[in-house]
C-alpha cells in the first residue's frame, strides 16, 4: 500500500492513458468489454486520488521525479537544480484532482447510456479518457513545459468531443472555435515558457519560483500566461467561446469540458500564487482578476437572461459563476503582500472561491444533465416551444429545482454557503464587489425562474402528451450529482475544513512548495 501511495501521482496519469490506447483494440473484441475497461480505469483512478489525498492531508506535499533512482530524489547529486520532470502534488492540486476524477467518472457513467445510438463509440471513449489524462496531468505537474503539453492534450480531446455529434452543424462549429482559441492560447503559453527558459535555464515551477527576479521579460511572460489562462477559464471579456462550445456538446461530456475549464483556472492560480508569489505586483494582477470576475458575473447573467435556448442559458451561467470563483481568489491575490489582511479575509476569500468551484461542479453538472434530458425527450432546446413538462418528467423537475436553488444561492443549499464566504470576504476589500455579487445572485434566480416557467410549469400542451420520463441510467447519473449537492449542503463545515482550507493554505504558502523540490538548496 505504501508503494501504491508513493507511485500514485504517476499512476493516476498513466492508467487512464494506457486505457485510452487499449480502448480501440478492446472494442474490436466486444463493446461490453470496452465499457468495463473505461469504467474500471476511471474508478481505479478515483480510488488512487482518494488514497493520495488522505496521505497528503497527513504528511504534506508529495513529489515524484520521473526517471530518477527513487521518486523523491528531485535534485541529482552534484547538481544545483532539478533536471528531470517532477510531478508535485500539494493540497491545492489534490483538491482539483478530486474534482476532476469525480466529474470524469460521473460523466463516463452517464455517457454509457447517452451515446448508445452513436457510431464511433470507441473513439468517443478514447477521447474521454484522454480528456481525463489532460486534466489530471495539468493539475499534478510541477513543470512549465509539461503544463503546456497537458494543456494541448486537454484542448484537442475537448474540441473533438465537443464536435462529436458531427451530424449537427453547430456542434462542429463549437468544436472548431474551441480548438482555435485553445491553440492560440497554448502557443502563447509556450512563448512564455521559452522566455522563462531563456532567462533562467529552468523549466521547473518550484525552481523558477525560487530564481524569479521580476524583470521586464518576466512581466511580458506574466501577461501572456495570465491572459491565456483567463481565456481558457472563460473570464469576460474572453468568454465568447463558452456558449458556442457548451451548447451542442453531448450530455455526459459537458461536465467534463467544464472540469477542463476548471483545470485551466487551477493553472491560472498556480501561476499567480506559486510561480510568482509575492514577486508580482499583487495589487495590480489581483485587481485585474477581480475586475474580470465582476464583469464575468454581470455580463454572464444578463446575457443568460436573454437566451431562449436551454443549454446556451446554462452555458452563460457557467461564465457567471466562474466570475464568483475569480472574484473570491482575486480578492485573496490582491492582498497577497499584506499579511494581516491575508490572514483575516484573504484566506477566507480564497476558500470561498475554491468551495464555490467544487459546489459549482456538482450543481452545474446536474443542470446541464437536466437540459440534455429535455433535449433527449422533446427533440428541441428552444424554450419557446416547451411547456408543462413537470407533469410528464417529475424526477427531472425535482433535480432541476435542486440545481436551480443551489446555483442561485438560496439557503440551505451549498451554493449559499460558498457565496456567503465570498460576500463576507469581498465586502472587507470593497463593498461594491459584494453588492454586485448579490445583484447577480438575484438575476440568476430570475433566469432560472424563467426556465422553470417556460419549460416545466404551465398547462399541458397537446403535442407533448406522450412524453415520458428519461431512461433510468440518466436518472441515476442526475441522482448522483443531486445527492452530492445535498450532501455538501448538509455538511458544509466538514467539507470546508477537510478539503478547502488545506487547499487555500497550500496556495498561499509558496515556500513549502519550493522546499519540497529544492530541499535545502
Amino acid at each position: 500500500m505504501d508503494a501504491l501511495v508513493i507511485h500514485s501521482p504517476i499512476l493516476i496519469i498513466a492508467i487512464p492513458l494506457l486505457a485510452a490506447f487499449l480502448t480501440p483494440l478492446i472494442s474490436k473484441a466486444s463493446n461490453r468489454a470496452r465499457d468495463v475497461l473505461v469504467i474500471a480505469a476511471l474508478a481505479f483512478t478515483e480510488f488512487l486520488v482518494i488514497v493520495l489525498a488522505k496521505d497528503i492531508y497527513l504528511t504534506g506535499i508529495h513529489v515524484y521525479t520521473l526517471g530518477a533512482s527513487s521518486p523523491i530524489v528531485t535534485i541529482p547529486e552534484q547538481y544545483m537544480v532539478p533536471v528531470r520532470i517532477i510531478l508535485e502534488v500539494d493540497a491545492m492540486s489534490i483538491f482539483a484532482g478530486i474534482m476532476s476524477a469525480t466529474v470524469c467518472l460521473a460523466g463516463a457513467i452517464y455517457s454509457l447510456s447517452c451515446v448508445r445510438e452513436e457510431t464511433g463509440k470507441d473513439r468517443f471513449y478514447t477521447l474521454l479518457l484522454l480528456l481525463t489524462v489532460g486534466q489530471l496531468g495539468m493539475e499534478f505537474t510541477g513543470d512549465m513545459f509539461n503544463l503546456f503539453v497537458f494543456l494541448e492534450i486537454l484542448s484537442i480531446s475537448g474540441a473533438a468531443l465537443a464536435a462529436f455529434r458531427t451530424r449537427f452543424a453547430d456542434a462542429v462549429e463549437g468544436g472548431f472555435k474551441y480548438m482555435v482559441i485553445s491553440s492560440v492560447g497554448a502557443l502563447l503559453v509556450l512563448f512564455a515558457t521559452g522566455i522563462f527558459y531563456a532567462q533562467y535555464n529552468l523549466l521547473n515551477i518550484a525552481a523558477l519560483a525560487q530564481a524569479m527576479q521580476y524583470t521586464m521579460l518576466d512581466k511580458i511572460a506574466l501577461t501572456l500566461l495570465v491572459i491565456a489562462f483567463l481565456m481558457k477559464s472563460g473570464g469576460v471579456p474572453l468568454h465568447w467561446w463558452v456558449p458556442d462550445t457548451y451548447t451542442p456538446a453531448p450530455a455526459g461530456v459537458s461536465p467534463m469540458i467544464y472540469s477542463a475549464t476548471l483545470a485551466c483556472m487551477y493553472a491560472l492560480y498556480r501561476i499567480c500564487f506559486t510561480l510568482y508569489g509575492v514577486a508580482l505586483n499583487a495589487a495590480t494582477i489581483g485587481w485585474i482578476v477581480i475586475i474580470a470576475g465582476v464583469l464575468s458575473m454581470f455580463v454572464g447573467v444578463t446575457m443568460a437572461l436573454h437566451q431562449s435556448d436551454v443549454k446556451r442559458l446554462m452555458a452563460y451561467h457557467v461564465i457567471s459563476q466562474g466570475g464568483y470563483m475569480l472574484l473570491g481568489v482575486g480578492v485573496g491575490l490582491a492582498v497577497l503582500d499584506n499579511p494581516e489582511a491575508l490572514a483575516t479575509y484573504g484566506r477566507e476569500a480564497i476558500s470561498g472561491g475554491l468551495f464555490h468551484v467544487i459546489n459549482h461542479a456538482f450543481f452545474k453538472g446536474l443542470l446541464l444533465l437536466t437540459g440534455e434530458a429535455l433535449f433527449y425527450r422533446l427533440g428541441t432546446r428552444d424554450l419557446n416551444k416547451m411547456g408543462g413538462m413537470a407533469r410528464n418528467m417529475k424526477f427531472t423537475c425535482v433535480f432541476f429545482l435542486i440545481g436551480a436553488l443551489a446555483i442561485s444561492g438560496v439557503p440551505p443549499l451549498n451554493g449559499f454557503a460558498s457565496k456567503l464566504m465570498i460576500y463576507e470576504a469581498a465586502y472587507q476589500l470593497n463593498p461594491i464587489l459584494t453588492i454586485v455579487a448579490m445583484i447577480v445572485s438575484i438575476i440568476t434566480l430570475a433566469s432560472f425562474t424563467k426556465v422553470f416557467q417556460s419549460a416545466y410549469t404551465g398547462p399541458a400542451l397537446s403535442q407533448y402528451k406522450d412524453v415520458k420520463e428519461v431512461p433510468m441510467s440518466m436518472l441515476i447519473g442526475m441522482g448522483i450529482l443531486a445527492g452530492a449537492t445535498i450532501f455538501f449542503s448538509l455538511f458544509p463545515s466538514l467539507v470546508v475544513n477537510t478539503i478547502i482550507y488545506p487547499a487555500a493554505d497550500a496556495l498561499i504558502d509558496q515556500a513549502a512548495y519550493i522546499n519540497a523540490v529544492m530541499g535545502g538548496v
Partner: protein
Amino acid sequence: MATSVPTLDYWAPLVCLIAFVILIAVTYLFRSRGRKQYKKGTAQTEIFLSGEEPPDTEERHIRAYNIYWGFFQGLKRYYDPTIKAHSGIINDYIIWLIALMSITAVILTIVSLT
C-alpha cells in the same frame, strides 16, 4: 469576522431543513381545511374568465421570449451593444484577446515604472 462561515447558527442547514418541514406541515394543514364538496369534470373545475371562452393551451402558455420583456426594454442601451458584440465570428474573439493582452502589458509597465 466569522471563522468558518457555515457554522453561523441560524443559517445552519439542518435548522433550515427542519423549518422547511414545519412549513410543509403547516401548508398541508391549511390545504386540508378546504372545501371537499366539489364535482370534478363539471363547470366547477374549469377556468373562469368572466364568461369568455379560455384560449387553447398553446396560446395560453406564456412563452420564453415574453418573459422579462420590461427588463430588456429598460436596459436596452446596455443590451443592444452587448448582443451585437456576441457576434459568433471567430476573428472577433482573437481581436479581444490581443487587445486585452496589450492593455494588460501597458498597465503592468506603467505600474512598475511608478
